[in-house]
């Protein structure tokens, strides 16, 4: 974390592909004899961010903070409660299923559990070829040929065409899932914990594959992960989520070298490092307790129940997500690693 690294010099392209504004998803909770709505799981509560063409934006945070829900909103597998999602200049927030059809080609999702997302009774050929059939896509040399090319692309053998998912290892299954995702040449891929279930050695293979594919097809990724080491490796920018909100959004280098939100600092310091010299002596920030329930999130700054810097204002005034450095947004009254000017900016923003 102490090493310096040049910021990625060339911003691959600055064209905004996906733009999210005030995105909210509340899952109603019903109770009682009449099943009245008594509350809501505030799974996602006001996200605003852009994804530029060709970049990898990662969403990190503890489980239950709303990462998967966000991913499902972006791919419109869920209907947002409020807010807008604009893809390539078009508002897709409330498109109906029929209108979504062309969009489904451009926006694809990869799931965590490579087995659960593959139909065990279908051959690999059928699974990977399904998008062609569903979308009625004409292929030059027939679907089979197209599927075999995809299999090769993701590092599987074309002979695997007639095999079933259970005959493959976890890493291979994830490759099958990726091949299916790539079938229709999507522009945006939302990958929900694509390597979390895999062994380290296999995880590296899949991470490399995803990077190669991004290069080759100019893909844009929204990567959902909880492993901060993997996130640092794959991302251009990182959004840290806590209880349905983005608390910090920054360039990868900035975020890891100069984290400004206390939660980010705590997360980074909790990552176990394969280096015995750090054992014991490292000054650790240890968060107490667990993430509170998203049904009744703490008021104002949602992190204040676990934050060691919390003051009275944190319990009454919600810190807005503001830009404290170029491309570095943070939502905290008392940011870490901040210059006096930045602290002043944060204080001023809270008063506004």
């Amino acid at each position: 974390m102490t090493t310096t690294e040049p910021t990625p010099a060339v911003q691959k392209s600055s064209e905004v592909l996906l733009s999210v504004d005030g995105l909210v998803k509340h899952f109603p909770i019903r109770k009682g004899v009449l099943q009245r709505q008594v509350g809501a799981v505030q799974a996602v509560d006001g996200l605003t961010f852009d994804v530029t063409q060709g970049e990898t934006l990662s969403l990190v945070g503890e489980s239950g903070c709303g990462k998967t829900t966000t991913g499902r909103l972006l791919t419109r597998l869920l209907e947002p409660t409020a807010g807008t999602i604009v893809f390539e200049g078009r508002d897709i927030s409330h498109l109906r299923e029929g209108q979504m059809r062309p969009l489904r080609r451009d926006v694809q999702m990869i799931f965590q559990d490579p087995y659960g997302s593959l139909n065990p009774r279908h051959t690999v050929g059928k699974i990977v070829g399904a998008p062609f059939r569903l979308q009625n896509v004409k292929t030059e040399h027939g679907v089979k040929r197209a599927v075999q090319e995809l299999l090769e692309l993701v590092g599987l053998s074309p002979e695997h065409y007639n095999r079933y998912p259970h005959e493959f290892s976890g890493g291979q299954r994830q490759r099958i899932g990726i091949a299916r995702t790539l079938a229709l040449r999507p522009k945006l891929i939302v990958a929900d914990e694509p390597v979390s279930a895999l062994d380290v050695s296999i995880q590296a293979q899949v991470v490399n594959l995803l990077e190669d594919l991004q290069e080759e097809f100019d893909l844009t990724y929204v990567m959902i992960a909880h492993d901060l080491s993997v996130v640092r490796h794959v991302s251009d920018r990182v959004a840290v989520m806590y209880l349905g909100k983005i608390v910090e959004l920054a360039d990868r280098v900035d975020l890891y070298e100069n984290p400004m939100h206390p939660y980010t600092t705590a997360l980074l310091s909790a990552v176990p490092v394969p280096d015995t010299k750090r054992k014991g002596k490292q000054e650790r920030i240890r968060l107490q307790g667990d993430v509170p329930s998203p049904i009744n999130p703490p008021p104002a700054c949602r992190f204040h129940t676990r934050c060691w810097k919390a003051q009275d204002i944190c319990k009454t005034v919600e810190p807005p997500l503001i830009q404290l450095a170029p491309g570095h947004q943070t939502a905290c009254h008392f940011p870490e690693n901040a210059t006096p000017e930045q602290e002043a900016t944060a204080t001023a923003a809270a008063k506004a």
Partner: protein
Amino acid sequence: MTEETQDSVPEPQRIERGEAFLDVRDLKVAFPTDDGVVKSVDGISFQLERGKTLGIVGESGSGKSVTSLSIMGLHPPGVAQISGQIFLDGQDLVASTREEVRLLRGKRMAMIFQDPLSAMHPYYTVGAQIIEAYRVHNQVSKQVARKHAIEMLDRVGIPQPDRRVDAYPHQFSGGMRQRAMIAMALSCDPDLLIADEPTTALDVTVQAQILDLIRDLQREFNSAVIIITHDLGVVAELADDIQVMYAGRAVEYSTAEDIFDRPQHPYTWGLLGSMPRIDRERTERLIPIKGTPPSLINVPKGCAFNPRCNYAHLNGGASETDRPELLDTGNGHMVACHLSPQNRRQAWENDIKPKL
């Protein structure tokens, strides 16, 4: 339980009690299945003293859990073929009767598991489950046991233990459940604690809390701890010694410092190279290990790692034909690999070290 040992010389009589507090010798565990015999653990040996922590790392399917279940005597009878010796404070568990081992379970050796939700009975309160664990080995009244359970919950950092004792597992968060599991495992003050992937299902922040807790409790109770994980970061936090497993065998065994600073086995190199590291400069590319772990029914001949190893060609065919034994390369750093010391040093200095 005992199987004829084809390739090991009969052990001399003098070591029949074992040397260390926990002394595992040439442990083999095989499961006959319809597809063939699964050699889950194929001859591993290690020693562990009270107050020390051994880390066992390796990819999934390398035999880590099977090893720990063998020590606990938790393989169902008739399912597993177990051979070798496991001395716990001088008593050979493999040669003991099931009842003898049962009396040790929970009392002298205890275990915590990966998924604390499924590892606790959904129909009993957390307290009832801890009380049960305590009362199996201690003739005390329910009230006394309950008081003890509350103390244990308090000790592992569960707030309001006198109220939480009556809660059900599903009312706890993941981290709290794992704390409760630890309370249950430690309720009889065991000398040996085995933690099988205790934090894999948890978030980093909670993982850090649990690892701290295990470390503190070990100091307090002076127990021997085996921590099993696939995460090298986790073992680095806790372990004094580390055993790296591949395909049912130990491929490298040494102190944690050696394993992280001077690893000698190509598989260990592979593991270290595949993981992105937050404490180092970001590399452009990860260096994965090619291929996938082998099936334990058809383990490759010679060195089981040879189909995935970048150095197999340096050994004049030995990697494909002879199984390397785990040998001391100096200072107790044990490695099972045919590479010559020069080749090994060269590979480490030139290929591996600069890229980690």
